[in-house]
C-alpha cells in the first residue's frame, strides 16, 4: 500500500453507533447527496477534473455520469479560471453547477472568476441575476502534499462579501450541507478535509438539509469553549476527552459554516464558560481564528475570564516532508495543553 493511503487508513475515528441508524462512509454520504440532487432537479450539474474517472473524486462522484448522463456530469479541461466563469455563467442562466476540485489549491487559479465575478454578480447587477453555484474541494494533509497541495484557503475567502463557506465535519453534515448548498442561490464553497474521507457515520437515507449559517454544540461543557469546523473538530474532540480526565469540561462548537458565522452559538457558550479557544485547519493569522477572536473582543469581552487563544497553522508554508510536518500541524495534545493553560488561575 502506498504511504499516502496507509496514512489516511491508519487514522482512527470513533465507531459510529449502529443503533442511531444507517452508517455510511463520508464519500458515500456525499455521493448520495449528489445523486439525490441530480435526480430531483434537472438544473443540477456536477463537473470537475476527473469526476467521471475510476477514482471518482475520492468516490464522491462514483456512478453519477452513468446514472445521469454526460450532459450534466462531466470531466472538464484543465482550465480552472475558465471553468469557474463557465459555471458562473451557467448558474446565472438557471443551472445549479457543482464544480469539484481535488484540492483548494487549484481554486486559486480561479480567484478572478470566483472573487471578482461569481461572488459579486448578484450585487453588481442589483439582484437581476443569481449565482447558485457550489464549489467543492478537499483540503490535503500529509504524504508530501506540501506547500502546493495542502492549502486551507478559507481564511483568504472569509472576507469576501457574497460568498458562503461551508466546512462539514461528519458524513451526516456532508450530505445535508451539500444539498443545502446546491439549493442555496448564492455561490457557496464547500471545503472538505481529506482526512475526513475515511470517517463513517450515521446518515439518513432521505433527502434532508443542514442549514447554512448555523453551528451545533457537539459536546456540552462548562469550563472552556472550543470553536472550529471540519477536521479541527476531530482534534478538539480528542483533546476534550483527555481534558475531561483531568477535570476540565470542554464545550465543543462545530461551526459547520464559517461564512455566515453563527455568532449566537458562540456568544451563548461564552456566557457559560467565559473562555474561548478557536481552532482552524487554516493559518492562524488573518483567517477564521483571527475573525472569531476579534468578534470575541468586540462583542463578548465582558463574558471573558481569560484571554482568547487560537490554534491554527503557523506563519510558514506547509512543508512536504514527514518530519517537518510533525512540527507544523496542530494536534490534540497542543489543543489540550492550551486549554489547560487557559484554565490555570493566574
Amino acid at each position, binding site marked *: 500500500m502506498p504511504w499516502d493511503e496507509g496514512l489516511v487508513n491508519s487514522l482512527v475515528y470513533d465507531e459510529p453507533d449502529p443503533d442511531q441508524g444507517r452508517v455510511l462512509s463520508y464519500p458515500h454520504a456525499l455521493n448520495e447527496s449528489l445523486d439525490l440532487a441530480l435526480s430531483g432537479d434537472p438544473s443540477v450539474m456536477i463537473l470537475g477534473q476527473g469526476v467521471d474517472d475510476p477514482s471518482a473524486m475520492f468516490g464522491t462522484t462514483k456512478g453519477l455520469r452513468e446514472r445521469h448522463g454526460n450532459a450534466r456530469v462531466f470531466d472538464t479541461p484543465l482550465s480552472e479560471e*475558465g471553468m469557474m466563469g463557465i459555471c458562473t455563467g*451557467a448558474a446565472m442562466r438557471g*443551472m445549479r453547477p457543482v464544480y469539484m476540485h481535488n484540492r483548494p489549491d487549484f481554486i486559486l487559479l480561479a480567484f478572478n472568476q470566483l472573487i471578482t465575478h461569481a461572488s459579486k454578480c448578484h450585487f453588481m*447587477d*442589483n439582484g437581476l441575476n443569481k449565482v*447558485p453555484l457550489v464549489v467543492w474541494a478537499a483540503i490535503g494533509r500529509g504524504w508530501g502534499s506540501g506547500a502546493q497541495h495542502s492549502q486551507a484557503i478559507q481564511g483568504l475567502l472569509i472576507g469576501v462579501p457574497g460568498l458562503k463557506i461551508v466546512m462539514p465535519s461528519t458524513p451526516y453534515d456532508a450530505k445535508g450541507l451539500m444539498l443545502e448548498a446546491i439549493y442555496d442561490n448564492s455561490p457557496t464553497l464547500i471545503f472538505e478535509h481529506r482526512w475526513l474521507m475515511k470517517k463513517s457515520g450515521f446518515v439518513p437515507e432521505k433527502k434532508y438539509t443542514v442549514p447554512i449559517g448555523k453551528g451545533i454544540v457537539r459536546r456540552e461543557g462548562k469550563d472552556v469553549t472550543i470553536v472550529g469546523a471540519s477536521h479541527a473538530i476531530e482534534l478538539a474532540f480528542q483533546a476534550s476527552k483527555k481534558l475531561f480526565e483531568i477535570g476540565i469540561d470542554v464545550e465543543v462548537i462545530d461551526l459547520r459554516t464559517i461564512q455566515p458565522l453563527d455568532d449566537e452559538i458562540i456568544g451563548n457558550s461564552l456566557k457559560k464558560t467565559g473562555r474561548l479557544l478557536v481552532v482552524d485547519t487554516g493559518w492562524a493569522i488573518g483567517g477564521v481564528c483571527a475573525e472569531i477572536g476579534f468578534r470575541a473582543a468586540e462583542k463578548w469581552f465582558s463574558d471573558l475570564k481569560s484571554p482568547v487563544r487560537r490554534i491554527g497553522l503557523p506563519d510558514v508554508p506547509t512543508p512536504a516532508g514527514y518530519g517537518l510536518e510533525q512540527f507544523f500541524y496542530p494536534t490534540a495534545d497542543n489543543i489540550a495543553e492550551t486549554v489547560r493553560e487557559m484554565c490555570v488561575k493566574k
Partner: protein
Amino acid sequence: MRYTYEGNGYKGWEKNLDFFGKDFLVELFYKMLRIRMIEEEIEGRYHDDFMKTPIHLVIGQEATAVGACSALKYSDLLYSGHRTHGAYLGKGGDLKKMLSEMHCKSNGCVGSRGGSMHLIDPDVGMAWSSAIVGGALPIATGAALASQVRKENNVIMVFLGDGGTEEGVCSESLNFAALKKLPIIFFCENNFYSVQSPLQTRQPKRDIVRWAEGHDVNAIAVDGTNVLDVYKTARNAVEDIKNGSGPWFIEAKVYRFRAHGGAGDDSKTGYRDIKEREAWEKQCPVNSYSSFLMRNNILANQQRLDMERKIKIEIKDAFDFALNSPEPQKTDLYQFVYAD
C-alpha cells in the same frame, strides 16, 4: 502609421441591397446615428461631472455594435466587456436607464451599482458585462452551456477587444466552446490598441482569426467599419449555429476615434499617430454608410436631418430624466449581497 484600413468600403455592396430591404437598411443607419449622437452628447457633458463614472466611448465603433446586435433576436443574449455603450444600445437597451445609471441614480440599469461599464438589462437580452478584461468570456460561455443543456435554442454573443484575446481565459473559453459545440459567437472588435499599447507590442504578427481557428472554432474577419458586412457575417454565424455548427469567432477591424476612456482623443500624447486616426475617420462608419445609402437613393439628406432632430429630442429628454431621477438610499447598499 501602424494600422491602416485595408477594406473596400461599400464597393460592390449596391448589388446586395434587395437582400437587406430598404427599411432595414435605413434602420441600421438610424441605430448607428443614434449611438453616435448619444456618445457625442455624453462626451460633451462629461466634464460637467454629473456623470461620475468612467466612460469608454464607441465613437468609430458603431458599425460593429449595430451590425452584430441586429443579427440577434431578443431571446439571444449579449455579454460584453467594459466598452458597453454600443452593445447595450445596439441590443435595444433603454436610454433613460442607461443615463440614469451613468448619473449614479437609483433607477439606473443596475441601481447605481455598476456605472457605465455595467449596462445590464435582461428585458432586452443584455445579459451581463465585466470590467475585467476577458471576464465576460467564460460567463457567456457558461450561458451558452446552459442554453445547450436546457435546449433553449438561442444564441449567445460576447463582445471582446483585441486585448481580450490575450487573456488566458479567452483560450479556455474558446476551447470549451469548441469542445461542447456551444451556441456562442465571440465578437472581437480589433481596434489595435489596449489603452495606449499597440497590438504589435502585445502579440506576434499573426492573424487573430488564425489564432482563433487554432481552437477549432469557426472564424472569420469582417470590415468593422461596414455595417452590412458585420451584419451579414453575424447573421450567417447565427444561422450556422442554429444548424449545429458550434461556436463562431468574428474579428472586426475597426478604430476608436477617441481615447481609451474619457472624453476627447488622446493621440497627441504620442502613442498613436494622429494621421492614423484621421485616415480611419475617412472611413467613419456612420458617414460612409450614410453616403452609400444616399448614393443609392435609399436615404435622403432631409431624412437624415429629420432623424437627427428626433434623436436630439430623445437625448435631451433622457438626460433631463436622468438628472432628475432619485438618488439611492443607504439601505439600498446592503441589498443583494446574498440571493434569496
